[in-house]
Structures are given as C-alpha cells and as structure tokens.
C-alpha cells in the first residue's frame, strides 16, 4: 500500500511542478490560466487522494479519510469555477489576448 501512496504522491508533485512552470513561463494572462486551472486541480486531487489512501489503510481512520474525500469533491467543483471567474474578470475589463503580431510589434 505504501508503494501506491508514494507513486500517487510523486504524480501529484509532478502535476504541481507543471502548473507552477506554466504559471511562470507562459506569455500572457489567458494562457497562464490554462495550467493554473487544470494542473493545480488535478495535482491537488492526486496528492490529497494519496494521503486519503494512506490514512484509510495505514491508520484505520475511516472518518478522516471520508472528510478528505469531501475536500477532493469540493476542490473539483470550486477550482474551475474560480478560474472561470478570473477569465470573466479579464474579458470584462478588456484585456487583449497575446498574439505573435503583438510580440513582433513590441520587439522591433
């Protein structure tokens, strides 16, 4: 059981790494939301799922594991909602998406 927990934990950390690199490296606001919306959600689901498996099978605390599964369900609903709210704010405030032409215009 420990091997499964460690495998899921490392998978979640890889997803978190991808999300952080995407937030740091993408060129504009809308493309930065793409790793922030998806990879952070899935990394959290995988990591917290691994911890729930460990608690349920190694520590025999079923109620705590059920609570952690409720955290997973809550995050799986609310994290895309928060991302969509940020995109909506950007669209209504009138931010323009990044294109290759705008980059060429900036760098003569």
């Amino acid at each position: 059981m420990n091997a499964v927990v460690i495998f899921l934990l490392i998978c979640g950390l890889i997803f978190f790494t991808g999300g952080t690199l995407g937030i740091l490296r993408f060129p504009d606001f809308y493309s930065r939301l793409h790793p922030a919306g998806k990879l952070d959600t899935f990394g959290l689901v995988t990591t917290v799922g691994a911890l729930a498996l460990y608690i349920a099978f190694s520590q025999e605390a079923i109620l705590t594991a059920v609570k952690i599964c409720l955290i997973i369900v809550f995050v799986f609903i609310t994290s895309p909602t928060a991302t969509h709210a940020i995109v909506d704010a950007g669209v209504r405030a009138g931010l323009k998406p990044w294109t290759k032409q705008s980059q060429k215009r900036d760098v003569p």
Partner: protein
Amino acid sequence: MNQVFLYAGLYLCLLMFLSLFRAVVGPTVLDRLIGVNAIGSKTTSLLIMIGLMYHRVEMIVDIALAYAMLNFITVLAASRYFQKRKGLYDEGSDRAGDNTP
C-alpha cells in the same frame, strides 16, 4: 513514511515560493490573483501532510477544508471586484480594450 511526507512538503514549499514570484511581479492584478490561487491550492495539500507528520490529522483536516473554502471565496470576491474597475491594463502594450469610441 514520515520522511516521504516531510520531503514532499518541502518540495511543495519550494513550488509555493516559485508561485509567489508570479504573485509579486505579475504585470496585471489578475496575474497576481492567479499566483495567490495557486499558493492556496498547494497549501490545502501541505496542511494535510503537516497533520500526518504531527499525528493530529483529524484536527488538521477541518482546517484544510476551511482553507479550501476561504481560498475559493477570496478569488471569487476579488475577481468580482476587479471586473468593475477599468484600471486593468497590459504593461508594455497599448491600453487594451478601451470602451471610449
């Protein structure tokens, strides 16, 4: 198993510092909001690891659930607030999307 949680938590702290870079230097306000949202979702995972390390996980789980809810409410309220303002602009390029005819 405690060592695994310790090193995973340390690695998550490193990733949180990298996300803090985007929250500090982001060109627009919404970029900073993305960085804060990423830090909050990593914190929810880190809290449960800390609870497992200190053998108090049945208490920490409630705190993690409350933190996830607070993170969601923070991002939602901040984005609803900033969409009313016209002060968001791209740094460097033109003043995008002015509604003035």
